């Protein structure tokens, strides 16, 4: 691909993101804000799953941890910008802890452990009413106010979220292109070989969970002021599954996959209203069809079409090998 195409596309995408809510009502702006927030959560899971190859079904619980921490602190009068680092650090530490099982088990076992973790978080949020408000949740969290720029208006909050998303994306981009990113990919593709080359795979596995979880926490910290109401049911296993599907549908292991995947899950239903209740059926069926024909998601599909069009074939050596080893 020519060198200028990628920066040009990214620039265009940012301009589109800036222009998207212009002239739109509050509802569309709200949906776009949700899209950005879920993109952040999916970006984190993409690091854990797409780059480092560790499946997690607990991303929504980190949104919960980030969201509740921010909510409790902002309700106690902290500014959002001060509450954020606390929430993120907390998610980082809990994420590290969730990484420990991954040192012992892989694949479906890990999927179940993380799923169990998500449900446990849900139960704690619901039952520990003295802290979390239990079933009733927490309500009335203020939106951050930056003196001249208050985010009370829906459009303002969108631009606030967009700024955070871009910062988060730049940091993520830095991580995945750094030697760490290379080591994460090595962990995914061949952990034994990576270990034999001096890569501390234990530490990397933990980091993959911790960083991915921190992004989940960031998304949660943004949900709190967006909705101004949080309750345990918004962070159940179904939501973790939803984020996982965003990553997979967009293209796990591709930097822009989460944005595309979150777009498909959050924005596409708007255009498919006419399908009424059948939307989820169609969506689930398409996910299965996609996994059969192009396991690398929509971005993978794009690359496949481009290669076919331009005549360059990328051999799926890894998959062939995987099939042989099994």
């Amino acid at each position, binding site marked *: 691909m020519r060198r200028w195409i990628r920066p040009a596309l990214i620039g265009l995408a940012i301009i589109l993101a800036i222009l998207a809510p212009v002239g739109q009502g*509050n*509802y569309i702006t709200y949906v776009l804000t949700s899209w950005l927030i879920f993109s952040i959560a999916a970006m984190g899971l993409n690091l854990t799953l797409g780059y480092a190859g560790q499946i997690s079904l607990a991303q929504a619980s980190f949104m919960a941890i980030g969201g509740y921490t921010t909510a409790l602190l902002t309700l106690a009068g902290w500014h959002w910008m001060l509450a954020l680092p606390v929430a993120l650090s907390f998610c980082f530490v809990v994420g590290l802890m969730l990484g420990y099982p991954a040192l012992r088990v892989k694949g479906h076992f890990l999927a179940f452990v993380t799923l169990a973790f998500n449900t446990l978080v849900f139960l704690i949020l619901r039952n520990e009413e003295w802290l979390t408000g239990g*079933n009733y*949740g927490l309500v009335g969290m203020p939106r951050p106010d930056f003196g001249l720029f208050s985010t009370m208006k829906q459009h303002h909050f969108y631009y606030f979220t967009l700024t955070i998303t871009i910062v988060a994306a730049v940091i993520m981009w830095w991580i995945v292109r750094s030697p760490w990113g290379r080591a994460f990919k090595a962990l995914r593709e061949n952990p034994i070989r990576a270990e034999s080359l001096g890569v501390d795979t234990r530490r990397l596995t933990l980091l993959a969970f911790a960083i991915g979880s921190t992004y989940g926490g960031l998304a949660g910290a943004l949900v709190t002021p967006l*909705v101004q*109401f949080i309750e345990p*049911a*918004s962070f159940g296993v179904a939501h973790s599954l939803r984020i996982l599907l965003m990553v997979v549908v967009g293209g796990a292991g591709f930097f822009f996959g989460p944005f595309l995947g979150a777009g498909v899950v959050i924005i596409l239903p708007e255009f498919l209203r006419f399908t009424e*209740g059948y939307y989820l059926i169609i969506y689930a069926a398409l996910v299965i069809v996609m996994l059969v024909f192009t396991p690398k998601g929509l971005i993978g599909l794009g690359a496949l079409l481009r290669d076919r069009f331009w005549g360059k074939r990328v051999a799926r050596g890894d998959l062939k090998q995987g099939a042989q080893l099994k």
Partner: protein
Amino acid sequence: MYRRTILAVTTAIFAAMGAAQAQQAVKIGMVAELSGAGAPAGTNWRDGIKIAVEEINADGGILGKQVDVHEYDTQTDPQVSRAMVQKAIDEGAYAILGTIYSGSTLVNMLVAQQNEIPQFVGSEAPTIVQKGNPFVFRTSSGAQKGVPALVPYFIDTLKAKKVGIAWVNNEFGKGGRDVFAAEMEKAGVEVVADVPSEQGATDYAADVSKLKESGADAVFVYMNQEESARFLIEAKKQGLSIPLVGEVTLTEAKVIELAGNAAEGAIAHVGVTATATDIPGIAEFNEKFVAKFNRNPTHDAIKGYVGTWATKYVTEMVGEFSGAKFAEKMKNLCLNVAEHPRMLLDTCWDEAGEMSRPSFMVQVKDGKPVVIGTAAAN
């Protein structure tokens, strides 16, 4: 399935050709739980509204304008519900009908309030009318009104000294449980078993066994429909022979259908019930509903129906489409059946949006809920 497709196609055609007509129509946003866990309640709410809208349009609409209802599905997700209320308002809704789940209503009522849009909700959690929101109105009594109406029954009729509470551990069940426990404490009745269960739970053996061992004289059962049915089945199996008393849900037609003869003898306090057929409006509604949808209406259907008609009555009393004036008019308003027959029962709202109207005590006898008493509006 066919009906849906035809409906979708006709809606599309009308939307295409009806631009001029749309000028004449007033939009109402029906925001409800059409999918997800709340779908049973949401679909009934929607269908009750459909009947009301047909009647209203046949009757000349509201202030001469035809009513155009737009449906928005919250997927039983509070965040989506907030987005949907926002969307309905962006698309020009004059009033919002919904939502039913309290968790959703608590979130989305903020949006309607900010935009000064009147909102009729089907939720019963006490907190909804305690937030000082002048634009939210109930279509049935909140738990803090409905549940206390039960207290005389426990104390005077059942003469209970010790009671058990079996409740579903979500915001709905917790709301009812808290009110009931507080009322019992006030009345000096001891709560000897307090048994929460998960939404969607299937195994009630432990719950019933705890209640049985507790020595309670009666049990207050506060759960959603199918949970109520499963509970009743298990209670019958273990021979739990003390009175099981619920609020609204326990004696609904669906619960009786699911629990079969295990529902026999269950008692509930209901704000409004489709089985109170000696009230002419309810009987008529019941017939229409069965004819159109081929199933019995639930109280959610009646709530949707009443909410829609209240929108018409009050708007016409105001004389224009103004959310602020509508809210002003609603304060301490009473609509009696004599002048407003489609309200089905004399109905009043206080300054907070809480509703009161006469209610019934109902018991399941021979597979049918039978009215065994009435309670005055409180």
